[in-house]
Structures are given as structure tokens and as C-alpha cells.
């Protein structure tokens, strides 16, 4: 499940007319936001707070899909939709999402670093 940031960002880069500086700025913003949403999600999971879970993972689903992170978006969706009906995810799903994010984060950070 290794993420290729360059490939994942391709649609956004294309939409931005290959303006790497702007995309880099957006990615940096996302790199700050996503860990915060994941922390909120974990916190809501610990408190068995389904609406809180739903909000955090809904937001994460939205922004991660914008950056082409299909795995992160899909896992977030798989938590968000049941949470809408009050169903809590398993610990394994939450952990899988955290792992998918770590992968994506490493790759995105490397991309940012390589993009002057």
C-alpha cells in the first residue's frame, strides 16, 4: 500500500495547470490538517462518540480524495458511513486508516521536500 505522491497529485496538478507552487501550498495545508482530523477521530472513537467520528472522518474523506489518496479516502468513508447510523468502527479499521495515512504522509512530505 505504498502511495506514489506524484501519481496521486496528478489530477490536482493538472487542474492547477501544473502550478507546483500552489499545489505545494495546498499539500502543506493538508499535511497540517489531516493529523488533527485523525486525532479528533481517534478521540471520538475512544469516547464512542459516533457523531464526532462521522464529522472527523467525513472531513478527512473530503480532503484526502482531493489529493488523490484513494486508500485513505476509502477507509475514512468506511468509518464515516456506518457512523452516520450510530455504528462504531472496529479498532482494526481505525488502525488501518492511521497506517494508510502514515504511508501517504511520508510520501507527500517527500514530494513537498523535492518540490522547490
Amino acid at each position, binding site marked *: 500500500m505504498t502511495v506514489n505522491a506524484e501519481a496521486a497529485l496528478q489530477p490536482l496538478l493538472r487542474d*492547477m*495547470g*501544473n502550478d507546483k507552487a500552489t499545489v505545494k501550498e495546498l499539500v502543506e495545508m493538508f499535511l497540517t490538517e489531516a493529523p488533527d482530523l485523525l486525532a479528533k477521530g481517534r478521540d471520538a472513537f475512544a469516547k464512542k462518540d459516533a457523531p464526532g467520528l462521522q464529522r472527523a472522518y467525513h472531513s478527512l474523506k473530503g480532503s484526502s480524495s482531493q489529493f*488523490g489518496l484513494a486508500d485513505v479516502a476509502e477507509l475514512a468513508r468506511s468509518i464515516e458511513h456506518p457512523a452516520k447510523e450510530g455504528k462504531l468502527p472496529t479498532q482494526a479499521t481505525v488502525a488501518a486508516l492511521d497506517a494508510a495515512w502514515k504511508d501517504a504522509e511520508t510520501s507527500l512530505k517527500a514530494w513537498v521536500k523535492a518540490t522547490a
Partner: protein
Amino acid sequence: MAQLLMEADLEARQKGLVQVIHTSGEHLLTVINDILDLSKSESGRLELAREPVEPLEVARDVLRIVGPHAAERGIALGLEPVGAPPPFVGDPGRLRQVLLNLASNAVKFTDHGAVEIRIAGKTMARGEVETVFEVRDTGIGIPPDRLGHLFQPFSQLDGSSTRAHGGTGLGLAISQRLVRLMGGQITVESTVGQGSTFRFTLRSALAAPRLPTAAPRPAANGPLRILLAEDNPVNRKVALAMMERLGYQADVAVNGQEAVEASKARAYDVILMDVQMPVLDGLEATRRIHAQAPEKHPFIVAMTAGALPGDKEKCLAAGMDYYIAKPIRLEALAEVLGGRGAA
């Protein structure tokens, strides 16, 4: 010829008759083309092009074509990309023909609700791309005993429905043959009264992505007054950056309540409205905006990500006019804003 005659100075009754001739002629042409396609595909003389295919572009074309018919019937249309389907090598014209057939059938057999094209594509080993196409509707559905006959030529559900819904009954047979030529197979899942999903999977080589050479032209006639209502700061920034590229500027609301207040203070042409927002969601905000300006309300576009079945119907029921799928794409924004003209 009939078309020329229609433009001539005729009495209403004569015009009506010429219209019938014209429509019959067109219909006959469709039948002939369909039969030619079918026989070509059966004799193996149909050759597929090998060009780069941007699956989302093909789907957008299809939605544009069926748009007027869907609007007439009050059916919502949607495009739901899963991730970012990559371009692949294939025959864009034939793919469009298949999707158009499935989508126009879906519109034809849906009385209320939505028709949606869902495309999931991923890159596999050895530079291959696997793309799953789905056309889903909330239509009348297909009884299980008819599913087997669906792809046979001249099959529609029954005589009465042939009359009610038009068509030659060849479209699905041709689509199935085309998809088989492309190396796939159309399958159907359907529940009577709830709707149908037609699905096929294509595998092909990855094509090099095309980079747009220039930004689309900004609206020529005066600035469009746009409000972007979105709670997620990153998504907000992405949408604003795309609009800037398209030559638009937008005001910003970070929740539904702010959107309601902003539209009280200023008459917007378009509101891009996230559906799920804190304080007040997009649905309730839409209802309130309608209530405060019942005579001339803005064109409200729902932005939804991986919506649940029924979500789109809720958007329309709340008074939203259109929806675009998240992640937001430049083409989708250009299309929805470009079609709005100027104030």
C-alpha cells in the same frame, strides 16, 4: 430535407406533419445504424481505435448529452469518480456510445430520483489500468426473469414499455458486444421498484495524461457573484484556487448559517454548497435561502463526497439545483459556472 421544410413558412398542422416525417426519418436512421453496428460486431469487422481515453471526460460528455432529457423528466444526474481514474488506451467514441446507451436507458426508465455514472480506476502492475464503470439509476428496475434476455437484440421489457419508452431494443445488445470487444462484460444488478446498476470493467494500458495548455477563458460578460459555502479549510482553498484559475472570485461562508446570512446581504448568482457543515447543514441552509428569496433565488450547487444512496434526492428535495461530486475538479467547476452566464 424535412428539417428545411420545418423552417419554412407552414401552417401549424403542416408543421406538425413535417415534424413527424423528420422524427420518423431520424428514428429509421438510428435503427439502420444500430443494425449495421450489430452486424459489424458479429462479423468481427468492427475495429476499435487505440487512443488515450480520459474516462471522466467521456462520462461528462455523456451526461451533457442526456442532460436535457433528464432535466425534462426531473431526474438528477451525477458523476462520481472514485479517486482519480487514470487515462488509458482505448476507443473513446465506442466507450461513449456504450455509456450513452446505458445512461439514456437509465434516464428513460427512471421516473424520479437520479442517474449516476460512477467510475473507479486504478493502476495495476505492468502499466495496466483497470477501470470499473457503473451506471446506476433509481428507476423501475428489471424483474429477475428478464435479466437474461436483456442483452438480446430487440428485447425490451414488454410491448407496452416499448411504446412508452421508445428505442430500437438494440442498444444493450450492441453495448454488450462493444464491451466484449474491449475485453469486458456488462453485468446488471437490479431490484424491481428500486433501480438498476449496469457495470463493466475494462483493462488496458495506461495512457500518458494530457496537460491542459491554457486556462479556460474567464466568463466574458461581467463577474458572476459566487458564494462558496464549505467548512473544510483545505477544500475551501482548493476550490478558491480553481475558481481563480477559471477567472472567478467567490465570497466564502464556513457553515450553512453564514451562507444564509451572506445571501441575505448580497444577491448571488451561484452558491456552491457543501452538504455537510457544522452549525447549519447545506440542506437546511438551502431551504432558508429559498424561503428568504422565494422569487429569485441563486442557483445552488450541492457538493457531495461519496454520498449515500438517497442523499442526492435529499439535496434536490431541499431545493438544490445541481450537484457536483467531490473531489472538486476544474472541469466540473468550469462547466457549472460557465453555464450560468452573467448577472
